[in-house]
């Protein structure tokens, strides 16, 4: 969206980047990672206590925030925008059942650049960059979906 005085910050070259995907990443579900997420959240809910006795292959309840510990790889592209400040805009998550995972199972995650939009903020133009992440099991079952938007100011 261009203002009357200046052209859009989103060039045709940038628009062509939409749809680019990052290389998939795979992680193993580890007790230590789940513990770190719970500890950071100070989440002492006894519902997660079965984590303590779980062994490789044990299926346990897992907090949905666990998926935030998996960092999908962004596409290998440069979004050249002359706005240097970067803040988190927000997220949307989808889950499909109570989350139960096996210790040691593999989860793959893939990221796609899904949208780039320019908007006018109170103090000037801003660009919203949205990624879509897909988390799935080895069998291809989709475990979670995330849309995450960052804002360049």
């Amino acid at each position, binding site marked *: 969206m261009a203002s009357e005085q200046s052209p859009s910050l989103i060039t045709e070259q940038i628009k062509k980047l939409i749809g680019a995907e990052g290389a998939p990443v795979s992680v193993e579900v580890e007790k230590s*990672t789940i513990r*770190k*997420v719970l*500890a*950071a*959240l*100070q*989440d002492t*809910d*006894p*519902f997660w206590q079965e984590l303590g006795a779980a062994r490789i292959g044990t299926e346990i*309840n897992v*907090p*949905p*925030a666990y998926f*935030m*510990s998996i*960092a999908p790889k962004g596409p290998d592209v440069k979004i050249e925008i002359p706005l240097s*400040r*970067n*803040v*988190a*805009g*927000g*997220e*949307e*998550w*989808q*889950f*499909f*059942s*109570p*989350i139960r995972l096996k210790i040691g199972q593999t989860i793959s995650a893939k990221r796609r650049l899904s949208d780039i939009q320019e908007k006018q903020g109170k103090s000037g133009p801003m660009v919203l960059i949205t990624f879509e992440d897909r988390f799935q099991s080895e069998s291809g079952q989709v475990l979670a979906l995330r849309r*995450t938007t960052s804002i360049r100011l």
Partner: protein
Amino acid sequence: MNVKQQLYWEDIAIGQELPALVKKPTTKTIVMWAGATDAYGEMHYDKDIALKNGFQGVILHGEMLGAYLMQLFAERIGARGYISSISYRHGKPAYPNQAFSCRAKATRKFEKDDKAFVVFDTWVEDEAGEKASAGSAAICLPKMSR
């Protein structure tokens, strides 16, 4: 609250608020979250850079506020309930060393594909009573009759 107590779809009325979840993140919390999620943005640990970018100090990870909202629901809905969807936008910077109140208010109930859902407005409120993050969530709950 005993989390293993199951919440049923019939238990929630439109307009009802879930008991709030109060969180008090510190700068140590920021470090722990960064380590747990591999999120090392400088504005979360470097005060000079945070100030240079117009913040009053280091800021909390927005995603962690979203995790607080997830915790709010996960603690209250029981083993057979789950978050079907949750979305939130970060409206203002959230600074550590204050209490945040995570809240949810039911706005709609519906059934689809043999499942029952309650939709909540949900938000994280700082000590000034302003919303640091806000959005909505659709929670799938079992029905008593099933």
